[in-house]
């Protein structure tokens, strides 16, 4: 797996889909391909309250990526230095083997170029010391990116606050 983590803090997500558009505009994509998706669910009842669920689906940047193995030309590659899985467009022949192989549906077809496109954590931005487009411009800041263990994780603190508040109100 890549050395990075792209964390989606669901509790802080509002399902606004800004990440999808930030991603697409950064990759110059028109309608069709969606390298990242927010899958939204209708509210469910939790302790008498409506609660929405959003699942963020970029690419998982697998350790042994199905898409890389399926690619006949070597266009689909895993970057040595950090494990980012990306496609080199000049080598892509548009055979779609990677699309068929990916168990998560992460690889997308770009009708404008007749090649595939996928989430590469915006590696050009990362190499320039920036964050992926989706993280940079997220409305609430529910997406965070970096090397695992270096990205702030709000969950333990939030849960601790929750149990303390429960205790105080009981």
């Amino acid at each position, binding site marked *: 797996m890549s050395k990075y983590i792209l964390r989606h803090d669901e509790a802080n997500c509002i*399902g*606004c889909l*800004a990440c999808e*558009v930030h991603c697409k*505009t950064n990759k110059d994509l028109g309608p*069709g391909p969606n390298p990242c998706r927010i899958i939204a669910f209708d509210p469910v009842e939790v302790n008498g309250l409506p609660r929405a669920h959003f699942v963020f689906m970029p690419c998982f940047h697998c350790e042994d990526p199905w898409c890389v193995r399926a690619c006949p030309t070597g266009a689909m590659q895993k970057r040595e230095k950090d494990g980012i899985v990306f496609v080199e467009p000049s080598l892509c022949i548009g055979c779609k083997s990677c699309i068929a192989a990916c168990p998560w549906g992460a690889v997308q077809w770009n009708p404008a170029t007749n090649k595939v496109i996928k989430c590469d954590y915006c590696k050009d931005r990362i190499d320039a010391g920036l964050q992926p487009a989706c993280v940079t411009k997220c409305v609430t*800041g529910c997406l965070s990116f970096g090397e695992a263990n270096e990205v702030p994780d709000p969950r333990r603190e939030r849960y601790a*606050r929750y149990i303390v508040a429960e205790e105080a109100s009981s």
Partner: protein
Amino acid sequence: MADNDVRRVAMTSSMAPNVSGVGAPGRRMVYSMCGMCAVRCPMEVTVEDGRVTWLQGNLHDEALGASLCAKGAAGLFLESDDERPQTPLIRAGERGGGRWRRASWDEALDYVAEKLKETIEAFGGRGIALSDRGGPFVDLTRTFVHALGSPNYFNHDAGCMGNAHNASRSLYGFGAAELIFDLQHCKHLVLYGRNIVESLMVKEAKAFMGAVARGMRCTYIDPRATITACKATRYWQVRPKSDYALNLAIIHEVLEQEVYDKEFVARFVSGMDYLREAVKDATPEWQEPHTGVTAAELRAFVTEIAADAPQVIFHPGWMSARHKQSFYVSRSAAILNALMGNIEVPGGCVLGKAPEHYGRTGLHQLIDRVPEVKEPRVDGAGAARPQWDPAIGMVHQAFAAMETEQPYGIGAYFAYRHDPFTGLPDPEATQRAMEKLKLIVSIDVRYSEMGWFADVILPESTYLERANILCQMNGPVPVFSMRDQAIVPRFDSRPAWWIFREILRRTDIKEAREALDFETIEELWNYQLDGTGVTIAEMRETGVVKLAAAPTLIPRDELTFPTPSGKIEIESEVLKQAGLESLPKYMPKEAPTGEKFTLLFAKTATLAQGQSLNNPLLNERAPKQVLWIHPDRAAALGIADGDEVEVNGGGRYTGCLRAKVTRWIHPEAVFMLHGYGATVPLARRALGLGVADQRLQHGKLYDFDPAGGGCALTETVVQVKRRTPEGVAG
């Protein structure tokens, strides 16, 4: 960069007025303001060789940061879209017939000027009306209208926050936008259908989610569970239009439990006896059948807010054009803020400060350049209707006057980036009202429903292709904000300041010709900045210039309110003058039965009313429009989830869409997204997509809350029937 970068170039009207240096090769960063909805977030635009390559929020606005919503990001696709007006267009056939001919700017502007002359001869200058979407640039449009001798500038608030605005004025003496909510320190936020995370203002949504994560409580009140409800700590699925009853009972209970800020109230609030009388019978038990909230829940809520006061905020609403007592919902929420004593305290409602508060000087107003208009407004705002703010008006009354010529006639109408055929109810009625007009002009970056009915479409350059006048936004720290021009226009379009200038220059009125007589936007900016101590170069360095280093609160001893009495007036002098009660009795709502439902509407985070659906990327994300209906009511009508249903609002228009059977809508209501059902053939992605809720709001154009003036959109009752392959069931 030179401070005074003004280049006097002899310009003919056919020349596009670009800022100097735009279109230069290489990479540069330009500060702009988003134009994808009316919130206008400040942003940074990266331009490479004349092409926009990156948009993000302006980092100098720390509360916003780099964040942009989906609409903001999709701005690149507005820019590259060919499905927008590319040259001036003059109608060639019947109004609304869709036949146009291309015209040069000179020809189109001469045409407009000629018709304006006819209008002024027939009706006087006051016979000209203009509506826009309000916001920070209205100094330009007001100046244009006043320069022509008309008082009839309108913003879009008849269909938006007019009720909340006028309610605030009747209580505090200033508009609702003058109170800024300090969510960072707030302990409990109460929302009446204010759907913060879907009806997005990015900064507000960000602050709200930050506060929720920190543990702020949020009570969300709405017949429909929105995503904001999903983030709240309490959700009350109240009966539609019953929120005023709820507020009367909350006030009753606050007084009963004596949990209001007695010191604050004694010093700053008048009319407490009136208040006690108004809510004396509004017990928690009384409201129960009206709202569906139990008396016990209401009492527990009041106990909870009492513990959190004064860090408790009752949001008086944004889109408040809902029902005939919406003004009083907003007014009673604002009264609750006063009772909490939350005015000008951290975690409460902080007063917006003008630059003068910090010893600075505000922008020089363009409107100071034109003579004061003495004519009364056509809608009576500020005179016959003293409770309506004349600064914003109520545009449905302009349409009424077009039809009736009462109190006087209107002959010409400009819709500047405003689409009343989408934003106001019953476009058929609006169209009828406009039939007699000598001139209808749409100034827009896109084909709006209204624009399609106009005589002339003047294409405005997109927000990336134009510079606007500078704007001043008062807040805890007031700022000047800039929309600079990032790129040259792709088509034969012009910025608004130039369009209005060129129309005025073609009139016979000397004051009008001089009102906007600036050759370049830089020259106009220098006029605005004169005396402020801020330069164009400084504006261009950060896009947003703060006029104080940090916010300071006004000491409590020095608080004053611009009402007739100087106090927060629970019994309002202005409402009394208008012959209105300050807190009337709640009007009970009959529950619609059988096939009848109250029609509710809203938007999602990817849609800004009707203006987003033709954008390729927003169209791609647009939810499939469905009709939310409660399982109990659906079952009685034989409607299953996913069934096709027909919806009719009493007029000729019937909408057809699929049912979404869900318990997250109150049984008395159905809900659909707004902004669908567009009809303009040249905007092909939006054309025919879904149902136009405003067309179902049949007969509602002149149905408004008389106190606030806002439309009563959710007074619409629709009939819902299941559709079978053979037609409608039953």
